[in-house]
């Protein structure tokens, strides 16, 4: 009897376990499909996606609300499903230009020489995914949402003064900070002047091109009011707009039709898009593939249309007809914390900083990662104008660059000895922090650890201190409260490639979150002139000369940082894809959203 009872208990336990297993198998990731509105809907329930452009993300998207996008993973998706006043459009001749997307035409200055009041006329045929017309009210609502002083969206600052300073916009956004005065929305320089016209009032004189570039930024994209307002929580404190398919409204080139959390996102062509005739693809499929080796395997199996190549893989595919390369998007520098007071403040000694600069064998280090050695601040991607001319290709921009990529070990040793003497040191040990997960930072650190010691002698040593990315980031930024938070670090900034002054703003006095202390008045004055000066606004050559002066001062007078190399950006593209542009468009990329497949 007892034996029978125990057998029964065992059977019940096994059944419970099996049920638990079944339950866990029944649930799983939500696969939201179909818009259910208008003509949208998932036409590929089988998952074949024939003819679709198949690409991938390395992480799941954080949100489709571009105002809070914390890490940029969603950029492509909301860029392709959202609408901007101005956007890059292929011109049919292998190039692209910044044209009206929601805007029907270029901005028009309505206050003459003052150049601060600009009127933008909207198209009258633009629609949301659900068929609602897009009007000036949508634009005003979107900008007001971006600048909401209670929600404090991180992208709001860019909407306020990213490229042009909209009157009172930043003050409206930050009005609740201690010491700030209340600002009413009526005082902000964003006005509706008609059902399809808006007016933008700026603090400083600007030009149409800058207005267009400002309203090309993701932070100025449209938010669907009804959807947004339905996404408030019960206390009206948190808004979950963009956190799922039913909490987002498309209106751009494509409509977001499928959202499988952490796994797959599908965009389908929007027949109501303002430039629908230029869209050749039926849709785009995004898979989440965290590992780049897996992504490469998927590409080689034909499951992906494009794949990014890691530095180590570039050599294997250089001769491959599918190989594509972009101008590097980021440059890595050895950052020098000139506020550090350890070692008698040697990091603030000019001769020491020169020693580090000239002791760095950039060519050899770059060869380790198939990178481009750099002795400058403005990278090879920085364009001077829409023609595609790069800053670095100008003769005047190369004239002041040193020979041999700035590598002069003898001169470096002289500067080092002088610096040690000036600081009263006989030996020196420094620590360099870097992101342990970055495949490009560690080779730099390891190389300079050996090479600098060879040049400077036994009195010098460098300790490597790899850290998680967020920890390294905090330590680099921590010098403002703790001057000795770090000594050397490896990192760089990522400027916008079609804004010449963007790479230099990081080195101006008072730039928030700089990696090092900057207070060169000449650079500040030049920067002000370049960004706000009337001559720079109208004379591109003058602007270029100002930028060149700033770069020379920062690198070749102050030696504020030690550039190393630009990170290569290479990828493979399916041979059946035809891109609308022959070269990468600054600010617009390769415009794969306008690509098409050709059959052999």
């Amino acid at each position, binding site marked *: 009897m007892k034996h029978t009872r*125990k057998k029964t208990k065992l059977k019940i336990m096994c059944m419970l376990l099996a049920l638990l297993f079944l339950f866990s198998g029944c649930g799983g990731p939500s696969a939201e499909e179909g818009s259910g509105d208008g003509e949208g809907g998932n036409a590929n329930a089988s998952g074949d996606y024939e003819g679709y452009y198949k690409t991938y993300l390395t992480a*799941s998207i*954080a949100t489709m609300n571009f105002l809070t996008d914390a890490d940029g993973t969603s950029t492509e998706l909301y860029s392709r499903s959202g609408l901007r006043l101005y956007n890059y459009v292929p011109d049919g001749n292998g190039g692209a230009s910044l044209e009206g997307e929601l805007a029907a035409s270029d901005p028009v200055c309505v206050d003459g020489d003052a150049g601060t009041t600009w009127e933008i006329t909207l198209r009258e045929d633009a629609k949301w995914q659900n068929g609602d017309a897009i009007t000036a009210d949508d634009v005003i609502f979107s900008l007001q949402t971006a600048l909401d002083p209670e929600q*404090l969206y*991180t992208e709001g600052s860019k909407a306020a003064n990213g490229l042009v300073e909209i009157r009172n916009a930043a003050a409206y956004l930050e009005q609740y900070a201690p010491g700030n005065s209340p600002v009413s929305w009526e005082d902000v320089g964003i006005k509706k002047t008609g059902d399809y016209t808006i007016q933008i009032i700026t603090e400083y004189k600007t030009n149409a091109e800058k207005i267009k570039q400002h309203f090309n930024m993701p932070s100025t994209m449209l938010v669907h009011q009804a959807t947004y307002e339905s996404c408030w929580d019960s206390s009206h404190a948190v808004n979950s707009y*963009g956190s799922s398919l039913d909490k987002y409204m498309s209106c751009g080139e494509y409509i977001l039709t499928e959202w499988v959390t952490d796994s797959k996102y599908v965009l389908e062509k929007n027949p109501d898009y303002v430039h629908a005739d230029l869209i050749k693809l039926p849709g785009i499929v995004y*898979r989440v593939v*965290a590992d780049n080796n897996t992504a490469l395997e998927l590409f080689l199996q034909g499951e992906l249309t494009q794949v990014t190549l890691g530095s180590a893989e570039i050599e294997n595919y250089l001769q491959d007809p599918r190989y594509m390369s972009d101008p590097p998007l980021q440059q890595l520098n050895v950052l020098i914390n000139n506020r550090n007071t350890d070692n008698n403040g040697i990091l603030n000694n000019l001769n020491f900083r020169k020693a580090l600069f000239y002791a760095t064998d950039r060519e050899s280090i770059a060869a380790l990662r198939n990178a481009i050695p750099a002795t400058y601040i403005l990278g090879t991607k920085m364009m001077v104008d829409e023609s595609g001319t790069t800053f670095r290709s100008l003769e005047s921009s190369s004239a002041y660059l040193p020979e041999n990529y700035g590598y002069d070990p003898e001169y470096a040793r002289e500067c080092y000895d002088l610096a040690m003497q000036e600081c009263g040191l006989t030996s020196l040990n420094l620590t360099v922090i870097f992101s342990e997960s970055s495949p490009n930072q560690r080779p730099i650190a390891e190389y300079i650890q050996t090479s600098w010691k060879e040049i400077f002698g036994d009195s010098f040593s460098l300790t490597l201190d790899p850290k998680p990315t967020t920890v390294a980031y905090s330590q680099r930024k921590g010098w403002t409260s703790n001057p000795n938070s770090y000594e050397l670090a490896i990192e760089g900034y990522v400027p916008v490639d079609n804004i010449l002054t963007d790479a230099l703003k990081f080195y101006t006095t008072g730039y*928030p979150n700089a990696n090092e202390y900057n207070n060169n008045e000449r650079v500040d004055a030049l920067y002000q002139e370049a960004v706000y000066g009337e001559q720079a606004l109208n004379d591109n050559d003058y602007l270029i000369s100002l930028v060149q002066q700033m770069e020379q001062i920062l690198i070749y007078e102050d030696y504020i940082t030690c550039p190393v190399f630009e990170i290569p950006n290479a990828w493979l593209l399916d041979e059946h894809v035809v891109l609308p542009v022959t070269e990468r468009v600054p600010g617009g990329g390769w415009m794969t959203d306008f690509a098409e497949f050709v059959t052999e």
Partner: protein
Amino acid sequence: MAKYILKRIAGIFIVLFVVMTAAFFMMRLMPGGILDGVEENLSADMRDLIYAKYDMDKPIWEQYLLFLKGIVTEWDWGVSLKLYVNVSVWDILAERIPITLYLGFLSLLISVPIGIAFGTLAALKKNGIVDHAVSFLVVLFISIPSFVMATGLQYFVAYKWGWFPLIYDDSLPRITTTFLPVLALSFTPIATITRYLRAELSESLNSDYMLLARTKGLTRVQATLRHALRNSLVPVVNVIVPAFISIMGGSLVVESIFGIPGLGGITVRSINVADYSVTLASLIYYTLISLAAILLVDISYGLIDPRIRMGGRKDA
């Protein structure tokens, strides 16, 4: 027994509270913050306003009390600030727990019978070729971490031979698309169970009661399965919990490799980007699962061996 279970459940809550408190303070004290990587263009005022909005300008102990107050009064565990902005952490977990549990339980359900089978075979054929082969596999499976197995399976089985999909694909039957990750997670537990059972069973096979069983007319296999195996299972059940916990831990990386939308991937990511709420909720979940597994195993002792009574009265 019921009293014992209730006591254990109360203990689980106490442990969870301790874990939650320790994790809360540890994460707040770690370098890094919610604005890392996005604050390049924020003014100092904007930065301060954002920190004030999420009470991060207050002392940590005050933040903790506010956190507890939110849980007690509104059952509010917070929202994600970085990974899935403004989504409630429990919504995030609820969507991902099922597939992680699916992987974990399926791995365990495969590992236990296979481990028992191999262990029994090795014990019965002790010092023979079969035993040596099984021992070799055990060493291999224990030595090679699950993520290495996962990468190898993905490369050879999925990529080279094309037998299974490279990554998780929701358009395919779940069993097909999760076969390789489940297999990768199962190797180590199979090896562990095999090794323990082989050792225990080898000893049991030489016991007096086995001799009696044989004398009574049972075959060697019958005697092993009906008597020796059962006696050997109690210590083996002890390793099932660590095996399950190692499966859950291994799934952190395996899920990333196969692109599985489970809890493991976001736990790692939440730590890296300092998304405190999600990290805390994930830690609590993993702790709860581990403690529940331990409790289940303890209860199962009584079922396997009638001599063991958990929480029973001691006889005078």
